[in-house]
């Protein structure tokens, strides 16, 4: 039976944490743990989720959980699964939750190593598109045009000049057993992917877009809407990589308005029509690629 709101484990494993109201990252962590269950052993690097969940004596994980070094999510996961395996313990799910900076920047080397070894871990990147914990600085997953505190938007430069790094395809290029993209706006899709990853031995990677009201400049109740809209307007897509091929899970019949998605967020408020045209162009190029190469 598919996991949904009615069938999901009612136990809460991530509770009482100090994440900002409306935090998309905490929603991703909460749902993933409910799907994985009590035998999940979570590794979280220095970052938002560890900062809000592990302030002794306020310890917000009901399951086993540990903070790793910023760069060490994947390598610590490797150690966890190897250590358990060596002691003959097999009924566990080693799962990592790292942000975009922790994954695509400082943690990329360790992640690549773990995939290369095909360690039996599930790595979940909750992507809120900047270093939010330190106060909204650009990461390599910050999208084009976004204003962060290190890519200020002024007359000369309109925020971030670089396109978002494509972690999903970078991970897939390793020949990983399973990789997927997801969004906290489409939790049924995400739950299905976590459930699937749970049953696969070897390295699994799920990249979930998780809006941050604080960093994106949206209201606390707009997190889920924004996460839906980014998929509906085509700036993010829901897909899987398995057995060497890509599958698109959700194809919007018609894209919703990119302008509408961007204009709601204060990080994009400065964008000119030309900037938005660039964003649309790159979206269209991406979808052309997806239609050609994804099932």
């Amino acid at each position, binding site marked *: 039976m598919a996991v949904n709101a009615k069938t999901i484990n009612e136990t809460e494993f991530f509770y009482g944490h100090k994440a900002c109201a409306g935090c998309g990252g905490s929603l991703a962590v909460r749902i993933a743990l409910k799907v994985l269950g*009590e035998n999940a*052993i979570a590794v979280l690097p220095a970052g938002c989720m*560890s900062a809000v969940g592990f*302030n*002794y004596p306020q310890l917000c994980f009901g399951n086993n959980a540990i903070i*790793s070094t910023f*760069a060490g999510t994947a390598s610590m996961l490797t150690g966890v699964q190897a*250590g358990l*395996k*060596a002691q003959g313990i097999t009924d566990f799910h080693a799962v990592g939750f790292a942000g975009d900076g922790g994954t695509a920047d400082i943690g990329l080397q360790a992640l690549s190593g773990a995939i290369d070894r095909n360690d039996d871990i599930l790595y979940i990147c909750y992507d809120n598109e900047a270093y939010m914990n330190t106060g909204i600085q650009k990461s390599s997953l910050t999208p084009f045009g976004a204003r962060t505190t290190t890519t200020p938007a002024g007359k000369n430069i309109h925020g971030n000049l670089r396109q978002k790094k494509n972690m999903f395809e970078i991970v897939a290029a390793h020949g990983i057993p399973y990789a997927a993209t997801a969004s906290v706006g489409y939790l049924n899709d995400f739950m299905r992917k976590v459930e699937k990853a749970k049953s696969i031995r070897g390295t699994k990677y799920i990249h979930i877009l998780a809006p941050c009201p604080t960093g994106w400049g949206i209201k606390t109740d707009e997190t889920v809407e924004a996460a839906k809209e980014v998929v509906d307007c085509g700036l993010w897509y829901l897909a899987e990589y398995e057995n060497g091929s890509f599958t698109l899970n959700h194809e919007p019949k018609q894209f919703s308005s990119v302008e509408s998605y961007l204009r709601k967020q204060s990080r994009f408020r400065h964008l000119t029509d030309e900037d938005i045209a660039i964003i649309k162009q790159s979206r269209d190029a991406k979808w052309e690629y997806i239609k050609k190469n994804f099932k």
Partner: protein
Amino acid sequence: MAREFLSGNEAFAYGVRLARPHVISAYPITPQTIVVEKLSEFVEDGSLKSEFIHVESEHSALSCAMGASSVGARAFTATSSQGLLYMAECLPYAAGGRFPIVMMNANRSTALPWNIYGDQRDSLSQLDSGWIQAYAENAQEALDLALMSFYIAEHQKVSTPFMANLDGFVLTHTYEVVDVPTQEQADEFLPPFKTENKMSLSNPKNLGFSAGPDTNTFFKYKEHTGLLHVREVVAEAESKFESIFGRHYTGLTESYKTEDADDILITLGSISGLVRETVDKLREQGEKVGLLRIRYMRPFPNAEIAKAVKNAKAVGVLEKDISFGNEGTVYTNVNSALQKAGISIATSNYIGGLGGKNISPQEIETIFEELKEKRSVVRFLGVEVR
């Protein structure tokens, strides 16, 4: 017990095999490489049942070892020089987490300029990371230390990671005849790793948390106390070791002819062998000289040093290290020990062996000669400053 012709690296690897770690994570670096090559051969031939992880960096090597330790597995890694510095973030992390990982470090110079040969600036630069630090003199001690390091690190009172240092090339690559204990003997010596500091499915925990200003000092004090317990646990380990293997070790330091010595040279690591020979030679000539070998830099043997030198007239510290802008780190520590003990004698610092430079018997004789002058100098061997 079998007698084998082994290098320091190989001897250490034999010791690690006897300790049967669950997880070995390692990244190659000269001159450590042979340890991990040897261990991977042991895994391949079935004589060692460990998860051998080919990590992609030293940072990951130690991060992986911490992950293994965090679920109650015995973990080993090895590194050297640049590798030790690359994993530097993980060193205090492992110590603060009280993960009793054992790591062998092949002492090697640090860049720049690049140099692959031995000195001790790599490990001594990490003295404050919270690890136990021991320095072996020869291959036999390397093997024995490998086995004892797990005993000491994992002891409930200690629960602290252990860095076992072997001088690069001089010790790691030099062959000696080494007694290799049997697995039965090793198992009799080393109990299985048991800890409450772990994530287990039946007793879930949150590990590696943050602790704010109110509790941080408490955690750090307890970490410090763990290291201070090492002295008594080393004594316990060495006594048990002797009863099983017949070899005697002497705790945090080893004194050689210091009882009636006027001039004592303090040093650490493989150079001690040459100093001991020089002491013997000078003793034959009627000179009252002695050697104090530091076996453990952390915890620091304050009391042992004070006891050994209390009747001496001068002390020299010979070390392969310089804390730039000051003096050798060992020298600083030794002076602190003497000051605390109220011992006021001339102390001099000799910086030698940097980047693998040979230290000659003649130079050691000259040091003893200079100690008679009872001056306090910091001198680089081989550098004549006018």
